[in-house]
């Protein structure tokens, strides 16, 4: 008996992982950049 698979489940899973992964990478990078530049400016101001 053949296993029945809904192809859309795989499409949604792959696109979900890809989109969320990309957005997390962009958001985390921007947050880390802003934090590092603020720290540098604080150190300069001391």
């Amino acid at each position, binding site marked *: 008996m053949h296993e029945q*698979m809904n*192809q859309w489940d795989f499409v949604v899973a*792959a696109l979900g992982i*890809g*989109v969320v992964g990309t957005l997390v990478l962009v958001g985390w990078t921007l947050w880390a*950049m802003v934090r590092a530049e603020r720290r540098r400016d604080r150190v300069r101001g001391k």
Partner: protein
Amino acid sequence: MHGFANPARFLRLARWLMPLLLVPGLILAFGALAWGVLVVPPDRLMGDTVRILFIHVPCVWLGMAGWSMIAISSIVELVWRHPLANIAARAAAVPGAVFTALGLATGSIWGRPTWGTWWVWDGRLTSFLILLFLYLGYIALASASQRDMAAGGGASRVTAIFGLVGAINIPIINRSVVWWNSLHQPPSITMGRSSIDGTFQWPLLIAAIGFSLIFGGVVLARMRMLLADIQAEARLRRKAMG
């Protein structure tokens, strides 16, 4: 090229270039994905799973492009000792690793309904998994070398040599489907030739351009972050020494 050896000049460029890459990149990438999901018809053989390729292919391309950037920056660092080359290589490592992991995950999800298996130890998949391990090794080495540099050592050259040696894996990944029998199909796009129908090729091309712009924007943001860390550490060291 040495004009950008001055961090202030580079930062001026990066400040306006970074959003110019990120914003159109996000619009193009997610627009192409929506096009691939909502407009493109199912493929005759793959059915609806063809839509996974609109994210899988750009991720795989960027995994390989990221290491190529590390290798080129390593050459520039070792030969010309450009001060930003080491920072550029380190900035490409994390996004390269993320896109490699996403390429592996989306490829595995595509493989299950198409090949009937999540994973096979063939040349293409194994060499791409090795690329992920190379990235993790590079990130660990770069982090250690940053601490060593802060202590006055010269370990960054070891990182550059590792980046150069790891580049051997890139042509292996590229040619693996030609050299060894594989479940993975042979290259669909080669120099000047494509076996992909235009219906699928255009959204794929736009997705690849969009994700490449995102990658460029993320690399610039990480270079700004690394430069800010270096400048803050240098300032603190100078103060500590009086």
